[in-house]
């Protein structure tokens, strides 16, 4: 036990003497989490955190364009209205194709006239049963950047479609009410005797009969809307933690490549004691890393226009997840330090494997958004275990009991790494 403390103290001392190394350890994940969260505009758009810009060109300048604008403004779309005297459809197409805007919509000339005509024709007395011909629809032109995510694409088209449906309904109801009114007038029915006040028809039709109420997805949790910050902060903190595997491997390789390791192996101390010293010291670093990132999420993010990161009532469970994840990372670092023969090797292998494990584990793209096969594969990544635990605690509001399995897997991963490292340490050549 005393020897473990000695080994831990030595690692801390070495870390403190290496100021630049320490700075990198803290700065790297901090910068990552800020940059990644800022650039994840797509995610924010998808989740309604940020409005999607829609180019709007009204070559018609009639009621149709005005009412479409009103409709769209209530949703998640931000209209960028272009001057119809200076721009044309080809320019919109180009702007979207270049990726300057994700969506463009053009209302062609005479659209209002054709739209009203069609509505009127539909309700012409005596023509009501006739199938409306195709020629009666008025095409509005839509351009969508092929580079946008499928989810965003379907979200935007659904909103536009919805707006068009509402407008068509309104137009039809207005026409229907007018036709009815005229018919009633022709029949000389006194207004009191009419079954319905035709003036009230539009109001009646806009009255919703069904609504959606969102309920918590589980009994214990409260409803929280999806928030990229709650997802990103733990995900990239985890990534940073696993990156400490590289400096740990480096510290072992420095010992192995000098006479230190040879000396230590001839002294009455088990390699496991030395590993424990490293693991404890670097777990301390990981914990500080997480606290720093959490503080950035909580206090810096609101200042730069992002939602704030919050650790709910599960703080002890969150810290436990941090400790177990960093333990797994340390185990991996120690293993790397013994299986590789140079720092260059360890940093290449380490960086590649951590990035791959992060990608597979859902740090970069959420697991549910991956192809089916990769989703199945994701459970082999230790970063996935850590991430699942964080999400259970921070997004789903579960308590400690829900993450015991993930913590167990992380612990097992450490144990396996430590075991193989111990075996390797006994046969260093």
């Amino acid at each position, binding site marked *: 036990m005393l*020897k473990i403390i*000695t080994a831990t103290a030595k690692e801390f001392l070495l870390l403190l003497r290496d100021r630049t190394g320490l700075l990198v350890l803290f700065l790297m994940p901090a910068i990552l989490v800020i940059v990644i969260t800022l650039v994840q505009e797509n995610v924010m758009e998808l989740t309604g955190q940020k409005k999607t810009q829609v180019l709007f060109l009204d070559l018609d300048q009639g009621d149709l364009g005005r009412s479409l604008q009103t409709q769209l403004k209530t949703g998640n779309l931000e209209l960028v209205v272009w001057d119809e005297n200076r721009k044309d459809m080809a320019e919109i197409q180009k702007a979207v194709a270049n990726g300057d805007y994700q969506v463009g919509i053009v209302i062609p000339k005479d659209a209002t006239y054709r739209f009203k005509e069609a509505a009127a024709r539909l309700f012409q007395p005596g023509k009501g049963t006739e199938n409306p011909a195709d020629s009666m629809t008025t095409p509005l032109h839509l351009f969508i950047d092929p580079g946008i995510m499928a989810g965003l694409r379907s979200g935007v088209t659904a909103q536009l479609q919805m707006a068009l449906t509402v407008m068509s309904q309104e137009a039809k109801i207005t026409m229907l009410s007018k036709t009815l009114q005229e018919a009633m007038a022709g029949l000389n029915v006194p207004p009191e005797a009419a079954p319905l006040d035709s003036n009230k028809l539009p109001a009646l039709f806009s009255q919703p009969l069904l609504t959606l109420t969102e309920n918590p997805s589980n009994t214990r949790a409260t409803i929280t809307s999806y928030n990229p910050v709650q997802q990103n902060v733990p995900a990239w903190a985890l990534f940073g933690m696993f990156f400490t595997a590289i400096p740990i491997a480096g510290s072992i390789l420095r010992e192995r*490549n000098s006479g230190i390791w040879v*000396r230590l192996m001839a002294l*009455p101390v088990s390699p496991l004691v030395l590993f424990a010293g490293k693991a404890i010291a670097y777990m301390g670093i990981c914990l500080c890393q997480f606290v720093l990132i959490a503080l950035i999420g909580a206090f810096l993010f609101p200042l730069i226009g992002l939602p704030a990161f919050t650790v709910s009532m599960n703080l002890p469970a969150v810290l436990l997840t941090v400790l177990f994840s960093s333990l797994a990372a340390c185990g991996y670092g120690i293993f790397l330090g013994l299986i590789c023969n140079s720092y260059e090797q360890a940093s290449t292998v380490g960086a590649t494997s951590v990035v791959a494990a992060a990608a597979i584990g859902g740090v970069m793209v959420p697991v549910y958004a991956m192809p089916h096969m990769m989703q199945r594969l994701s459970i082999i990544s230790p970063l996935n275990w850590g991430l699942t635990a964080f999400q259970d605690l921070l997004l789903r509001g579960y308590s400690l009991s829900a993450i015991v399995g993930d913590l167990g897997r992380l612990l097992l991963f450490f144990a396996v790494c430590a075991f193989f490292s111990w075996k390797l340490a006994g046969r*260093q050549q």
Partner: protein
Amino acid sequence: MDQTASINQGNPARPDSGSSGAIFASGLIKQYKNANSPALNDFSLDVQPGEFYGLLGPNGAGKTTAISILTGLFPPDSGTARIMGMVFRESENKIKQILGLVPQNIGLYDKLTARENLTFFGKICGIQGKKLAERIEQGLEFARLADHARQPVATFSTGMKRRLNLAVGLINDPQVLILDEPCVGIDAQSRNLIHEQLTAINQRGTTILYTTHYMEEAQELCSRIGIIDNGRLVEEGTPAALLQQSGRANLEELFLHLTGKELRDS
């Protein structure tokens, strides 16, 4: 074949395999992966308690490999190694309690000071409290680094590093001390200091195994010398006996005669 040189050739320690001195090796074979020839090829050695034994050999002869096996860093492919009659497989901890190693590559933390290095390795050996403080002061005094105790090792000269490297190897006051080329690359002053102190330590009863490629060093220090080449001991005896038997003017000549003049590590 030269008649005189063949007197003791082969495996001098082998015949009386029943005896087992302070440092004992018999028939050690070690083949590294991705190496053409074995680093140790039937290497045997028997150093008696209290002896100052010099293991002399050209670059790549297998000195470090032999020491690695003797200090339990890795096992040999075959053969046995014992320290004070104990084998690593059975009494690893007991051996490590009485063994001191000064590695060929300097085994010090660059970023720690001289005192911190001594403290760390002392504590790792299980030494504590007053005894530790004493040993640290002795170590600093031994390495003549008392005035530089608070300086990080990175700022030290090669001589200072070598002296501290040696002092750290002595921190647990070992009964058996194994030194792998402790004087490479240092000036005459440092070397002289180290020589004097090693002699003193040996006179207090510590068994020493000392590897080097410098003849005079071995001749000056050691009570017995073994010459290793191509992973096997080719000659052994006291410096005087070796000279007498071979009829050479000095050990340098004998050494070149025994190990050949072509480069060994090319």
